[in-house]
């Protein structure tokens, strides 16, 4: 269970110290109930700003554009903890009056029996059921609630890091019966973008078929064909892609032969970053995502521009994406 020091108190999940706050319900401990969960339902925020020196990845939302937009729609500071939903459909029960916004991936959604539009602020009443289908466009869907999900901070964030069971709700994926605490609502408006602009930003991430890449530390030591091929034609997102990494279709046979086999005794691992495109020994590009390793053992052939990581994250397996050098 969540440590008792946090469940009973009205814990402010937004981390904001300015602006007046007021509780929406009489108790925030069980604001939202998981009636049925998709295969991967976790609490995510902007992730841990530090921790790489201890081997802790940043974690946080796969699509921070959608996290920030959905939070803004309900009046939360942009990095507030929200639900990240993937892999299927499910149902939540609202137990306190709250504002809800759903963004990122699209899905069929109803709230209290009525169609719930994507990318708008919804008013939910106690007892309302929120039904969400498997995502129909994009891969990662976000549900922000007013006040945020008020689980305790662990090492500077509420983001869930499943491999080490850090943060989130007991460090795990949410399952049927879980009761999620809400934080205090925040009356300040931290994000002044209009709802229209927020939807535009999220739609751009879903619709874009290309990402921009820059050179990485190993680019110059790899055969030039590696770089040329990477940017020459679209790559296919493979099904093994997850919160740790996005795997892309292999480069051609000739290039695979040219790529040096990584040998961990000869070539030391180097610190990695989110968006780093590593070339595995079979010629398959593997892009490090928010839960990915802090050290890279494979040669880094390229790196995604920081703002383009969400574009790759939202591509579903089988979709194609083009790398553009810039």
């Amino acid at each position, binding site marked *: 269970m969540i440590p008792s020091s946090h469940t009973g108190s009205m814990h402010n999940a937004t981390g904001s110290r300015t602006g007046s706050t007021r509780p929406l319900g009489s108790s925030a401990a069980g604001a939202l109930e998981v009636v049925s969960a998709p295969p991967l339902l976790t609490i995510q925020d902007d992730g841990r700003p530090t921790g790489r020196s201890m081997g802790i990845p940043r974690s946080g939302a796969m699509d921070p554009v959608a996290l920030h937009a959905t939070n803004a729609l309900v009046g939360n500071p942009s990095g507030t903890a929200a639900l990240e939903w993937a892999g299927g459909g499910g149902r939540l029960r609202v137990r306190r009056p709250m504002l809800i916004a759903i963004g990122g991936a699209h899905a069929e959604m109803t709230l209290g029996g009525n169609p719930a539009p994507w990318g708008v602020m919804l008013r939910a009443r106690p007892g309302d059921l929120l039904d969400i289908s498997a995502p129909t466009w994009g891969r990662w869907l976000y549900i922000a609630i007013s006040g945020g999900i008020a689980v305790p901070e662990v090492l500077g964030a509420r983001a869930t890091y499943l491999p080490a069971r850090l943060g989130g709700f007991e460090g795990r994926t949410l399952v049927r019966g879980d009761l999620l605490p809400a934080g205090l609502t925040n009356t300040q408006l931290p994000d002044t973008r209009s709802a229209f602009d927020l939807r535009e930003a999220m739609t751009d991430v879903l619709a874009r078929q290309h990402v921009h890449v820059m050179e990485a530390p190993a680019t110059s030591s790899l055969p030039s064909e590696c770089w040329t091929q990477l940017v020459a034609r679209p790559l296919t997102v493979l099904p093994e892609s997850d919160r740790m990494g996005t795997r892309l279709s292999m480069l051609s046979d000739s290039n695979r032969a040219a790529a040096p086999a990584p040998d961990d005794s000869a070539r030391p691992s180097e610190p990695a970053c989110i968006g780093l495109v590593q070339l595995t020994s079979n010629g398959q590009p593997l892009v490090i995502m928010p839960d990915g390793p802090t*050290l890279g053992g494979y040669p880094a052939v390229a790196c995604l521009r920081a703002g383009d990581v969400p574009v790759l994250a939202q591509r579903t397996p089988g979709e194609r994406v083009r790398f553009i050098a810039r």
Partner: protein
Amino acid sequence: MQVPAEPQVMALGDEAVLVRLGTSVDSTTFSRVRDLVHTLETASLPGVLEIVPAYASVALYMSDASTRQAVMDAARFLAGAPSEAATADATSVTTHVIPVRYDGADLESVAEACDLTVSEVVRRHSSRTYDAFALGFVPGFAYLGVLDESLRLPRRPQPRTRVPAGSVAIAGAQTAIYPFETPGGWHLIGRTAVSLFDASRARPALIAAGDRVRFMSIDGA
């Protein structure tokens, strides 16, 4: 003695900078890495959130892309300057002594593969002071080296799906302790009760990159 290569300073994506001091795993290169970390920490560059050493390189992570060029310039200057930290090195490095019960599942097969007795494997593993070259794989997992040459074996052909927490293992020129139960392909030679990672501690990871580690053989069932 090999002349150290000129440091290479490169962008690591938009929000990080990599300083490469070499391309080999050895204590000489790593002592330069340790010195550079000390120099960079002392310099306290604006916008830098975290400094992360690993083997022969150091990465600096920023909160956004706006400071990258300034950090690259500063890192290039500091990495090229003669180190004043070197003399303080020996006294300021933390050394951890890890008690180990040498009864790992692979201890006998390691001894056989190395053509040594079990007690000689234990003696050689526990008679060195190792550098913590880097942390990674999982939180708190420190890559320690370098291992006595007579103990160097390739990884197991089939990784185990579950390696118990606290397992002390070897592979290649390195040794490590598994902080959690995870999959793993290293050879298990012992176990320790020491907690390598605990998120509720002020310093969650027991071993930091740059620290030194010794193993102490203990008896008992």
